[in-house]
């Protein structure tokens, strides 16, 4: 029985290197199958292979399958993790059919996706049915900046000590409307319009945090926070330590950064690297409405100073998020698209360039695993490590500059911790070490584009 699928990806190889069954015979990898069959998956009667695929873009739903229901081994004789194991981790379920064909449908960890078994999968149908399943669960569609505001409002309702300070956050509603309407609701003192004095009002927020409040400082553009570097580095990061643990600084510093649309060099800065060495702070970057709201809430509830990096071009992303309250973990990374061939680590806007490249890659027969690291400091070495152990190849795609950027730190961390698992040197695609040019063409070449990502993956996977 041939399972016809609409054009896209099959994921199956449990290891990108050869897999063997217990008798030492090599199991066919999906990649092999695809090459032979030109993109369609075939149920081979001798191996009872059933593979489901879904469009990688559809609500993160993923199918994985075992090449054999018996244990699979790699060339060293070590047992490869079975699908069942994968599923337990991912929260899907496994169905064992009487003819030993495994039909598996796993969904990613996100609450709203329902696990559904689809036996006769045509990708388009799959998409529709899962989409309708999701909408039946509930949730509401929201833009990213609205999600930030929703998170902020929920936390301000929950704790009267939470307050916002920044330029134009009050009456103007925030230059990216992240605080729209809040000043009317909570008053001018709780949503404080400050004069243009970043260093001082950030310091003021530190003092307020030390004395019992929970302020959120908005930098109208992340670049403006360079003026507050003294307070962020010396006071935010340090005071808990130098006071011997007496004072805590539960402050959130947030704002839009990154390269926009021809905003010029100073408004297009990528400051993650500048702040990452400061001891005592945490840094997170949001990329979807779902994680924007969750991270905002987590950052506000955290006792540590947290810098939340938003991106100018992502504010109008639309997504359906749960109605019920949720808070994400500040230290965890997000699995965007499980895969087998290569681990692509990314964050913020580059996630979308990576996913766009992933479509092309999948068409070419690759199976990238995409992880949005989310936590820029500290790194979630567990999620990242597990991925590296599975795929053995790493590509980092970031918008940060090359020199001393997040990618550089991540490369070092992976090399230190997972060197043995790597089959190839870690590749890091960062934006150029240039002040972002104004001209559109130059600006485009400053940041990493999907075509470059595809090329890099092809090179790494050779």
């Amino acid at each position: 029985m041939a399972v016809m699928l609409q054009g896209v990806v099959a994921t199956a190889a449990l290891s990108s290197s050869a897999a063997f069954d217990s008798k030492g015979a090599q199991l066919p990898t999906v990649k092999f199958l695809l090459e032979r069959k030109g993109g369609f998956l075939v149920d081979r009667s001798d191996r009872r292979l059933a593979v489901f695929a879904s469009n990688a873009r559809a609500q993160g739903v993923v199918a994985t399958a075992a090449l054999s229901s018996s244990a699979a081994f790699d060339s060293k004789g070590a047992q490869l993790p079975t699908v069942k194991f994968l599923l337990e981790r991912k929260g899907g379920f496994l169905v064992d059919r009487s003819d030993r064909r495994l039909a598996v449908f796993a969904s990613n960890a996100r609450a709203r996706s329902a696990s559904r078994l689809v036996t006769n999968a045509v990708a388009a149908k799959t998409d529709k049915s899962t989409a309708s399943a999701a909408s039946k669960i509930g949730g509401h569609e929201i833009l990213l900046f609205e999600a930030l505001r929703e998170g902020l409002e929920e936390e301000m309702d929950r704790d009267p000590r939470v307050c916002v300070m920044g330029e134009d956050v009050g009456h103007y509603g925030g230059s990216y409307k992240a605080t729209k309407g809040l000043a009317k609701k909570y008053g001018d003192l709780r949503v404080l319009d400050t004069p243009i004095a970043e260093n001082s009002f950030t310091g003021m927020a530190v003092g307020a945090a030390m004395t019992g409040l929970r302020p959120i400082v908005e930098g109208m553009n992340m670049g403006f926070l360079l003026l507050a570097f003294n307070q962020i580095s010396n006071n935010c990061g340090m005071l808990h330590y130098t006071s011997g643990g007496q004072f805590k600084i539960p402050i959130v510093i947030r704002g839009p950064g990154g390269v926009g649309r021809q905003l010029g060099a100073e408004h297009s800065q990528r400051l993650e690297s500048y702040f990452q060495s400061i001891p005592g702070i945490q840094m997170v970057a949001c990329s979807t409405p779902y994680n924007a709201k969750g991270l905002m809430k987590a950052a506000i509830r955290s006792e540590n100073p947290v810098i939340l990096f938003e991106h100018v071009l992502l504010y109008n992303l639309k997504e359906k998020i749960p109605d019920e309250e949720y808070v994400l973990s500040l230290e965890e990374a997000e699995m965007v698209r499980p895969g087998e061939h290569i681990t692509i680590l990314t964050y913020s806007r580059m996630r979308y360039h990576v996913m766009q490249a992933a479509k092309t890659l999948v068409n070419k027969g690759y199976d990238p695993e995409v992880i949005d690291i989310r936590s820029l400091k500290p790194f979630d070495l567990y999620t990242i490590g597990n991925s590296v152990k599975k795929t053995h190849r790493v590509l980092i795609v970031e918008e940060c500059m090359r020199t001393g950027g997040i990618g550089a730190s991540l490369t070092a961390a992976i090399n230190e911790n997972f060197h043995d698992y790597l089959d190839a040197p870690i590749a890091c695609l960062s934006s150029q070490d240039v002040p972002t040019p104004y001209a559109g063409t130059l600006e485009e070449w400053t940041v990493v584009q999907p075509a470059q990502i595809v090329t890099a993956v092809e090179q790494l996977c050779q």
Partner: protein
Amino acid sequence: MSSAFPAMKILQPLSTTRSPEKPLFDLLKSPSSFLGSASKLRFNAQKPSPSSSYSSSCHRPSTIVAVSDVVKEKKTLKSNSSLSNLLITKEEGLELYEDMVLGRAFEDMCAQMYYRGKMFGFVHLYNGQEAVSTGFIKLLKQEDYVCSTYRDHVHALSKGVPARAVMSELFGKTTGCCRGQGGSMHMFSKEHNLLGGFAFIGEGIPVATGAAFTSKYRREVLKEAGCDSVTLAFFGDGTCNNGQFFECLNMAALWKLPIVFVVENNLWAIGMSHLRATSDPEIWKKGPAFGMPGVHVDGMDVLKVREVAKEAIARARRGEGPTLVECETYRFRGHSLADPDELRDPAEKARYSARDPITALKKYMIENNLVNEAELKAIERRIDEVIEDAVEFGDKSPLPSRSQLLENVFADPKGFGIGPDGKYRCEDPKFTEGTAHV
């Protein structure tokens, strides 16, 4: 003129000759004099004090608004030396004296300990400026906040941090007020609401502004009716040329925050004379430019400082907003214990030594029959014992162990992240030993 204040015989600088018609610095008359050398310092004793109504702690030309008339009234009271009109009671006098002697003795002991190799790094001593710390901080309640700079030992002591805790911190021991992690320039105390201790000048002023903001927030948003905490921000003349100073003056006046900005103008920022660094050296004038009163006071006289402080703190408590108080004071020692202090004119040092605030208060109290010598001697002996005890305590206290290294980096140690094994780093037993790899 009362003879109770020996300080009054000495020149009061700044606005004595000042009036709208006769500015202190007449730019037309001396356009080219570059204030390069110390001999041009205007605090030379050549300008006599013409004004006999001078007994005030507040100098201001009529063009500029300063503190209220309450203080103006008090200044006439001071010139009458009858007992009922004295500025302080015996108890208050003894408290002030003890605090200043504690500050002085502590700093002298710090110098000794430094040269004996018990404390290291940059240590900045407060000798000579005790009147400012005592005059202001002794008026505060426990829940009021104090924010200081690197010259913070005496602010800590005046606020109530035990001498043992401060000395121990200087020795770098775990029993120090900051567990040995802060050091001389980073004195903090949650119990006594001392918000630091900052090594970079100007850095503490926004923090102080934030504490004042919290006070206002608690009163107006959280509706805590009784909350009227006042914050004092101490900083020097050098800081008054820094952006954070001006930005905070603006914000504090704008929002009427309950804060007092206390400038300890000791004329020198390490080796930079205030006059060489500042276009208009009269710092108190900068207050009215932002919409708050600016007051100048003789910072070598604790009673004058106290009078001004009372008014400024009361103003803040009433919700009327901030005040800028410039205290003319002097540090008898160098900028820090590493400073050879070669630039300052010995004559200038001698002049200010003669105005030692402790001697002045002693003289005032004895001449007004508030106390006798024996009582003051008893205080001095008691303070000596406190200091000896503090040193002994510091000596006997343990040095921090390895396990303390990573404990206070984050208030929530989950901030160290998740390790390759899936557990939070801080759950790793080696973490508390300080040998974990983070």
